[in-house]
């Protein structure tokens, strides 16, 4: 805490000196000219001065300059940049609207990301923003555009098993990723055992992946932050967007409630496998599975200084079956409600106050005649937070704030109903308080050097257990020349909630448990060094990042752990440490007929647990040596485009038995297995290519695109898992264990119709 206060004082003192100079502030919002959507992360750069700023999560910017004439360039990926000449004699409010970039046959000259050079100039590393239009362009399985699957194509991000939307970042586990939808934590971002994510692309405005160099406003997870913002809704005219696919359909509607003041957005998606299979079921039996997502958002602008947002998400999976007097139903899902109030104190100080409620519940109801048993687990959060953006000087961009969350964990809840009069119930609750203070300053020292200093102070309370610490973060950027820079970053993170899962796949039965005096908070420290360079007048962005991450108090499950409905799951944990290191190469083409990227990761990830693998260090389950991903879009003309994705990854780690012996106390009935070192066996590498062709046409006022996507175009049988089976060799007659590989998805073509009106 002392360090935190000292840092605050230092920042304030340095800022005070700077205030003495005569300067004025330009501030305002950057939005889309057509629909009024605020553009998050738009770059405002000042010509002839190697400086600039970016809009915050609500499209607000502020920049303080000397009294003079200035050329200001405002740019955003996918939009036509604007160059404005201004004379700054007093503080200026300048709201800017950008026009979306439309296809031009003469591609040369498009300055999508040009001049901003954010990747070179800003002290940001390990942060990748993915434009939503790019997610929509790439091919997808069953035609379901899935942003989490697009994240898997980035360097440092490793996909889970075949077809899964699960991902692991820089050697971390699946629970070490914080997924935020309009600031609400989504605890289970998957549908159907991880094959689909809960995010409907039509409702999403922006996605950011942070895998290193964590800004101080984020905390609570060790490996990554996925920050997703929902669309605000068009405040100028009514529009709709949707699609009809193989397994689901979706629709999004948006429009003004009061033009230029208030708007709404509502979006829904539902699968219909349950409806399709109904006619094929025998009489007296009903069974089905479906999932749905509903997103809604409204906003109201009271004045130029005050705006409120109310957004909500509701998503669920439902599986049910019944016959005779027996029924079985499983449903699980997230719901969240977020209320936000933006207030502009003055042209330099912007605040956002947020109230969040979110809830994740897994429920299983079984009925046998009159007897019913209902099992539940879940987690419920109530969060209040305040964030401030303060732009005291052109060289400083300060963020500070506080957050408090009250969490209610329900690891296990059981209700047994024997008849209408007799019932038994049993519930376990855990109540946790988590809070944090943070401050972050993005500081430009001179033309070549900029830094980002941050400090986060989390506090965690569970019963009599209290934990607090300081998490220093910094990124140092040295600009070598206008096209290249070197960056160095360090971040410390703590994690207070832990996912209990014994599987490599995402199951709804996975539960979250809080830290305690037994389950200590997990801690990670990460250091990264990167070289960033743009080529061909910024047409290509490239980077190489080297990282090392050290983690302590990691949790694994005891060998042979029993976790399903176990009220004392903490007793099934074992504790250890881990480290990961690697190099990530990234080449991205921003403009031209072909756009896309190539990523390559060379990485190592290890764990050491005194109670596992006889105490010896072993490769982590997420240890993947090589990972290559290629994503590209080729636009033939205004109507036709072709896209492709290729992925290659080293095989998954596995522990195999290598020997066996009979244990006398079990007689001849039991063969004990002698395993090799944990995770030392590797499955065959995973690789796959998908392609997609999109044809766009206009029918009256409706823009439609017809998509043909082919998943796994060369029908690669990738290993989902293997099992060993005794098989008799026909030549020798000797029975030998043979590895049988189970693959999941062969070539799958999908036809989808999307429309926009």
């Amino acid at each position, binding site marked *: 805490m002392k360090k935190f206060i000292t840092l605050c004082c230092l920042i304030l003192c340095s800022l005070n000196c700077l205030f003495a100079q005569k300067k004025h502030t330009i501030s305002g919002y950057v939005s889309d000219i057509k629909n009024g959507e605020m553009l998050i992360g738009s770059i405002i750069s000042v010509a002839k001065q190697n400086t600039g700023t970016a809009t915050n999560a609500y499209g607000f910017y502020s920049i303080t300059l000397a009294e003079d004439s200035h050329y200001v360039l405002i740019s955003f990926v996918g939009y036509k940049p604007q160059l404005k000449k201004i004379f700054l004699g007093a503080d200026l409010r300048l709201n800017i609207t950008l026009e979306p970039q439309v296809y031009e046959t003469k591609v040369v000259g498009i300055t999508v990301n040009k001049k901003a050079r954010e990747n070179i100039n800003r002290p940001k590393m390990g942060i990748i923003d993915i434009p939503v239009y790019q997610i929509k362009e790439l091919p997808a399985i069953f035609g379901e555009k899935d942003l989490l699957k697009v994240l898997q194509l980035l360097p440092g991000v490793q996909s889970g098993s075949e077809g899964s939307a699960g991902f692991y970042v820089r050697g971390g586990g699946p629970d070490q990723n914080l997924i935020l939808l309009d600031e609400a934590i989504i605890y289970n971002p998957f549908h159907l*055992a991880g094959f689909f994510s809960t995010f409907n692309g039509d409702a999403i405005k922006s996605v950011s992946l942070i895998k290193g160099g964590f800004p101080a406003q984020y905390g609570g997870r060790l490996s990554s932050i996925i920050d997703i913002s929902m669309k605000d809704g068009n405040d100028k005219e009514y529009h709709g967007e949707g699609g009809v696919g193989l397994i689901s359909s979706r629709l999004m509607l948006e429009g003004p409630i009061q033009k230029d003041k208030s708007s709404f957005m509502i979006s829904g998606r539902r699968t219909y496998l349950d409806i399709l299979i109904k006619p094929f079921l025998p009489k007296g039996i009903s069974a089905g599975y479906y999932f749905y997502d509903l997103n809604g958002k409204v906003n109201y602008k009271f004045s130029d200084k005050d705006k409120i947002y109310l957004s909500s998400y509701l998503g669920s999976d439902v599986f049910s079956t019944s016959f005779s007097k027996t029924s079985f139903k499983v449903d699980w899902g997230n719901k969240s409600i977020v209320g936000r109030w933006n207030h502009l104190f003055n042209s330099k100080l912007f605040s956002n106050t947020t109230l969040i409620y979110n809830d994740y519940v897994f429920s299983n109801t079984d009925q046998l005649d009159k007897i019913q048993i209902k099992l539940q687990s879940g987690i419920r959060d109530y969060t209040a937070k305040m964030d401030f953006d303060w732009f005291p000087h052109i060289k400083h961009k300060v963020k500070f704030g506080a957050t408090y969350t009250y969490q209610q964990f329900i690891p296990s809840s059981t209700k047994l109903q024997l008849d209408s009069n007799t019932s038994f119930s049993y519930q376990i609750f855990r109540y946790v308080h988590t809070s944090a203070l943070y401050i972050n300053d993005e500081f430009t020292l001179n033309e070549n050097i900029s830094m980002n200093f941050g400090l986060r102070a989390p506090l965690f309370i569970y019963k009599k257990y209290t934990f607090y610490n300081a998490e220093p973060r910094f990124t140092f950027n040295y600009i070598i020349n206008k096209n290249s820079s070197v960056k160095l970053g360090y971040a410390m993170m703590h994690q207070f909630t832990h996912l209990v899962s014994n599987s490599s796949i995402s199951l709804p039965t996975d539960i979250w448990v809080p830290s305690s005096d037994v389950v200590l908070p997990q801690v990670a420290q990460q250091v990264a060094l990167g070289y960033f360079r743009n080529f061909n007048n910024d047409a290509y962005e490239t980077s190489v990042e080297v990282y090392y991450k050290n983690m302590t108090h990691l949790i694994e499950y005891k060998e042979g752990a029993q976790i*399903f409905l176990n009220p004392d799951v903490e007793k099934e944990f074992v504790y250890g440490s881990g480290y990961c290191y690697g190099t990530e190469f990234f080449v991205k083409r921003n403009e031209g007929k072909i756009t896309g990227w190539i990523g390559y990761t060379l990485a190592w990830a290890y764990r050491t647990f005194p109670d596992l693998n006889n105490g010896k260090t072993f490769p982590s389950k997420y240890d993947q040596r090589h990972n290559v991903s290629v994503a590209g879009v080729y636009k033939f003309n205004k109507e036709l485009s072709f896209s492709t994705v290729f992925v290659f990854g080293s095989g998954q780690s596995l522990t195999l038995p290598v020997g066996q*012996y009979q244990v006398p106390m079990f007689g001849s009935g039991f063969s004990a297995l002698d395993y090799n070192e944990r995770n030392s066996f590797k499955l065959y590498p995973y690789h796959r290519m998908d392609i997609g062709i999109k044809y766009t046409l206009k029918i009256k006022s409706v823009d439609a695109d017809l998509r043909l996507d082919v998943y796994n175009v060369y029908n690669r049988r990738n290993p989902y898992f293997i099992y060993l089976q005794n098989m008799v060799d026909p030549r020798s007659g000797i029975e030998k264990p043979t590895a049988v590989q189970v693959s999941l998805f062969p070539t799958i073509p999908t036809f989808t119709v999307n429309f926009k009106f």
Partner: protein
Amino acid sequence: MKNKLLLFSLLSAGIFGLFSCEQKVTYQLPQYDPKPAVFCLLQPDSVVKLYLTESRSYFNYGDTLNKMRFIFDAVLTVKDETGVTETLHLEKGLENDNNFNRNPWDTTKRPDNKVETWLWVGSNKTKANTKYSLEIKWGGKSYTAETRVPDVPVILNTIIRKTEGRGFGGGGQNDSIKTAFFVVQDVAAEKNFYGRLEIDSNSNQSGGSSGYFDNIYRYSFTEDGAENGRKMEVYASEDQKRGGFPTDSTVVFVSLMNANKEAGDYLTSLQHQQNTQGDPFSEPVLIKSNIKGGLGVFGGMSYSKKYRIVFK
């Protein structure tokens, strides 16, 4: 775990049914050199009895009978902490396979099925609280292990408690149970695993003399853990008159086993491996062993006297 698997199976059945396929693929499977597998639990005032078998590659064998492959050409020596050394010799024995190959609730009488076994046996009786080391010379290599013979567990008394509700709030008429516990004085600075051993009421067995095949794998152990050196309660039995048991007896005979760290670690991990074998989503369980370079256990175990517990 079964419920979890069932759930996953149901959810994924559609997708697997539509798309999945199996393929026999050739993997370069790891090479394996056979190792000696030891099974020896020293008991106070008993001679050393040791099973020595040979492990084999999981991937390359023609013997599907899963018979024990006894090692006959080894040299085994056991030395106590005072330096007294003895060389073990081979003895042929017969064990009742039927005795240890069925579930605990199965009381049906079956004809004995004797299995031929080979034991390495010593002549000297081992003593409690004494450290022993084992050396096996086999195949040009040496394998070693150490253990200490635990003392007979100190049972202060037995208590019976009536548990209401048994986890379900509200409690019904049939929802309470009488449970007996041993109150044990744990030995400080020593890792202990306690387990109950139920004895046939018709048996004259008085604990400790029942040999190796005492069905100990059927029962979970209670580790001293945080209770190290303190008084602790160890589950002894439940009133069997309550539903779910085949007998209506209100009298049970039990004794308490005290396994040392080597034996407890081995037996616990062995049981965990047995529970999780065949579950493709479970992490494999490595059986803990204190045999340097080899497999199995050279541990110690002792038994209390037989207790008669009456549920009234």
